[in-house]
């Protein structure tokens, strides 16, 4: 089995983002970037499946500007075998990304695609669902467990009311929730080795995908700030304030 893992380069989760003064987006110049945390979980799961003997090859794919190759290298340093980089400077929406991923998955003959459930910059939570729809393959969204079996995959999903179990056939598309695993760190020797692993470079045109936008970003603004209130020092004082001042109990 070949596993394809799409990864996104995002602003590091620990950075406090700032909205640009011209309201066109958030400040990205000189900001620390990293692999989207949910994608790290996806890479980890693919590697574990390979280590358990269920997969022969783990391929990392990312679409975007030149720097995305660094994010692919991060996946290779974790232990993936090779990379595919779709190079474009265009603003990418999830539907366009899903179409490019479909083209790559078809070309590679991937039997499992593991995506993150959500990119922590745009907070879309869309690409995996769209890819499953385009490829007409079963979707396992928000998974916290996946096991290969004869029929395909037994998955557990995190849903609002608790957990849900599904059996899906192979080939399939799944998206990772936080509790699927704890991603490994890349060791120094593996970081060195990753430098030699191959990355194929493609363009949206070569994949035959129309990536034109369906959405226009009119403006990006700062949300209204919340002010710090007062400190209390006893239960009596807190209850009194909640009853008489805030009137919420």
């Amino acid at each position, binding site marked *: 089995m070949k596993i394809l893992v799409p990864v996104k380069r995002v*602003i590091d989760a620990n950075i*406090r*983002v700032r*909205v640009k003064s011209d309201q066109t987006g*958030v400040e990205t110049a000189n900001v620390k970037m990293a692999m989207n945390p949910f994608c790290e979980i996806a890479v980890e799961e693919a590697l574990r499946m390979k280590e358990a003997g269920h997969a022969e090859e783990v391929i990392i794919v990312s679409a975007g500007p030149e720097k995305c190759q660094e994010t692919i290298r991060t996946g290779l340093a974790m232990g993936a075998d090779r990379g595919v980089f779709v190079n474009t400077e265009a603003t990418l929406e*999830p*539907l366009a990304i*899903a179409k490019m991923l479909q083209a790559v998955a078809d070309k590679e003959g991937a039997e499992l695609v593991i995506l993150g459930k959500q990119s*922590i*910059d745009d*907070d*879309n*939570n*869309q690409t995996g*669902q*769209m890819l499953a*729809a*385009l490829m007409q393959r*079963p*979707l396992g969204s928000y998974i916290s467990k996946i096991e290969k079996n004869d029929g395909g995959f*037994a998955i557990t*999903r*995190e*849903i*609002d*009311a*608790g*957990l*849900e*179990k*599904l*059996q*899906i*056939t192979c080939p399939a598309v799944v998206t990772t*929730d*936080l*509790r699927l695993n704890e991603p490994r760190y890349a060791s120094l020797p593996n970081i060195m080795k990753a430098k030699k692993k191959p990355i194929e470079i493609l363009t949206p045109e070569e994949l035959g995908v129309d990536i034109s936008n369906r*959405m*226009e*970003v*009119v*403006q990006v603004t*700062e*949300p209204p700030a*919340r002010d*710090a*209130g*007062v*400190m*209390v*020092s*006893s*239960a009596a004082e*807190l*209850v009194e*304030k*909640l009853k008489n001042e*805030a009137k*919420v*109990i």
Partner: protein
Amino acid sequence: MSILVIAEHDKSVLLPATLNTVTAAAQVGGDIDLLVAGHDCGAVADAAAKIAGVNKVLVCDSSTHASDITENVAVLIQARSADYSHVMAPATTFGKALIPYAAALCDVQAISDVSEIVDADTFVRPIYAGNALATVRSSDSIKMLTVRTTAFELADADTGSASVETIDDAGANESIEFIGQMLSESERPELTSAKIVVSGGRGMQNGENFAMLEKLADQLGGAVGASRAAVDAGFVPNDYQVGQTGKVVAPDLYLAVGISGAIQHLAGMKDSKVIVAINNDEEAPIFQVSDYGWNEDLFTAVPALQEELG
């Protein structure tokens, strides 16, 4: 304008998130139809017909929909999509999985987690864990959106008189088999619609200590939530998680106990009306967004509060 709202229900009860979504649909303006896909879901269809502002309820009562399989609901939407300018569902795990899937079937770019309707084509949505608000305009012929339920009031659930039309299912996907669910049972109000939420974090130390918060929540008539750290440590189940990648809540009162206030947690609760924080670290960032802060050990503060509330 004609809008299709996808109802979320548990076969017997229509979930409140549907009512928030109807309010968002009403702000777009136009005829609102409600799709109820389920099995033995007559009671849900009846309830749906009573929602104020709904024109018509489309009921697909079929064993295909005995469980919510994204694919099976999505093909129903696709089959009807030509009749609508907008398709909307709540931004719950149900809606968030469904809408992008249906949108891709219709070659439409979905819009997630809409918190404000500017006009029929233009919507506001939080990005970067709520650190920024993006206003986006869609050029697709159908707008497919999920709605942040806390940003819209509940529609009136009693005064409507919609017509009810039965529709056929569009087939069951053979590649997916429903095995089962492990649902959290609770007598308390549902987390996302509770008026009061008491949440615990890593400071709670273990699952047993959450009993203190449960007692407090019961005294206040509220629900219990948690930070990711508390869920990851196994203190409470995953469905307690509040935040960027968990549930979004906006109760009248949010009480954060032993929670530091990471940006990803704030993303799920900072629209609460009143925030109270109990933390023994006076530098904890949660105090910067709290209306009332109490710098105290929670193992002293929570029992004292319980006693005060008697």
